[in-house]
């Protein structure tokens, strides 16, 4: 996949930052929020030039990659049928102080992305982009090949999907670090050392191997 088309679900601070970054890196990007296509025209023209609004059913047909950049409780509003067979980047976090408690996620000891994947049958889910503060996505981006760039961790079970995610992380200005299967998402969720930590790839690897 040379330059996959990107569909971003969620036009808040993270969704907007991802849209700007990926569009700036030459990707075709579409975005949607819960208020619908028409609500986005002003926001697009000022914050995300070059990005288009697209209704969710059309977006899931059009996009090669879907990024979920919405509060975790709201992913249940998406019809799972739309994401069957799609590459889905889970950029969400389980964050009770901010979004409220979700009993299913409280009870589960694994990664929140595993539960998301379980509830999206057929989706090829990968976890990344959840552990960087939205403002830092723009401020700390550096060109590919820059030594000691900040690194962004990823975790997933599908190698093709991991390669694509790594390409997007690299394009948006960060060093991808593959931490393993989707279960290893636990390493970079809220309250972990890696979460929102400004680290290079080797620093992350050292931290992970130490523990």
């Amino acid at each position, binding site marked *: 996949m040379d330059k996959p088309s990107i569909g971003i679900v969620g*036009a808040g*601070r993270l969704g907007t930052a991802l849209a700007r970054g990926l569009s700036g890196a030459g990707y075709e990007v579409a975005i949607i929020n819960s208020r619908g296509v028409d609500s986005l025209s*002003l*926001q697009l023209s000022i914050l995300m030039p070059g990005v288009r609004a697209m209704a969710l059913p059309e977006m899931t047909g059009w996009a090669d990659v879907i990024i979920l950049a919405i509060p975790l409780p709201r992913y249940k509003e998406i019809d799972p049928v739309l994401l069957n067979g799609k590459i889905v980047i889970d950029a969400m976090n389980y964050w009770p102080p*901010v979004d*409220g408690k979700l009993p299913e996620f409280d009870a589960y000891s694994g990664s929140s992305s595993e539960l998301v994947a379980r509830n999206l049958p057929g989706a090829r889910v990968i976890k990344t982009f959840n552990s960087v*503060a939205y403002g830092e996505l723009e*401020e700390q981006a550096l060109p590919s090949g820059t030594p000691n760039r900040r690194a962004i961790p990823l975790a997933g079970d599908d190698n093709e999907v991991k390669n694509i995610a790594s390409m997007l992380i690299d394009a948006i200005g960060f060093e991808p670090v593959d931490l393993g299967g989707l279960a290893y998402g636990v390493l970079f969720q809220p309250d972990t050392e890696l979460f*929102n930590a400004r680290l290079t790839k080797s620093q992350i690897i050292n931290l992970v191997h130490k523990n």
Partner: protein
Amino acid sequence: MEIGVYSFGDVQRERADRLGPTSDAIINLLEAIKHADKMGVDFFGVGEHHTEYFPASSPSTIIAAAASITKRIKLGSAVSVLSTDDPVRVFQQFSTANIISGGRVEYIAGRGSSTESFPLFGYDLKDYDELYNEKLDLLLRLNLLDKNEDFSWTGKFRPSIENAKIVPQGDVPLKIWLATGGNPSSSINAGIRGLPIAYAIIGGHLSRFKPVVDLYRAAAYQQGPEGYMPEVSIAVPGFVADDAKDAKDTFWRHWHWTMATLGKVRGFSAPTREHFDYEANGDGALFVGGPDEMVERIVNAHELFGITRIFFQMDVGQMPHDRFLHAIELLGREVKPRVNKRIAELKKNG
């Protein structure tokens, strides 16, 4: 341009392992507001928080008390968590304080970036957006009632009101601002409603917020009320001392404590000193330095955003009270006059 201060109340440190009493923080806060008034500071905001280190849980009470011991300074919530409060009560409290102050009280409405008030008052975080919008609508309507007008209202999150008198009413409506941490939909919301907006910028670089401020102005012009003139203010961490290095070293210690503590619930990591220095200089969001640097950076912010007010949170992480009072003095006596002189010069030349 107006120069201000805002605070959540800041307990002092009693011991290495113990915070001081919350009662002291309230008394100190009132003293700081009185001092700010004497030093010529334009605005003092009180931000609703419900923690053992930030204990200003009732801004309206503090504002009303401050109103009776100050003469010129404007006072306001910064912010009041409208989502978890009753808009009728809020209006009554702030209208009362406004009358006591002789018309110097404003209201900055927040949704709650710290969400302690949600479980405390029995609200569900799932209703975050809807709660805020319904309550803001109600508050805005209460603010525009004619004297002695009967008021009726129905909604989802509050019992109905039927032919009620809403009192007391002052001579002029409250100035009501919408506060935001920078998400696009809040800027659009403020613009469409025709409300002045206050950006809380607690990190990063100012230029990063330029697009979302532009979004607010565009929303106001394109979709706001006829003839509404957008108004922008920014609220940032800050600290002034006579010596720039001392200011940065001192603020760093207390800021680090705050960010480490807040970061655990809000999802950001405690900054390193390197990161702090990056943000505490130039275009960064942390306005920390000596008077010269403060003047320059404030003027730059004014040029960048066209702000009518900038206000600083200086008492964080158990900042020693005497340092806070001195910072207020420098702000009012040194920084403010020089900022306004510089802005006037720029206006004349440009």
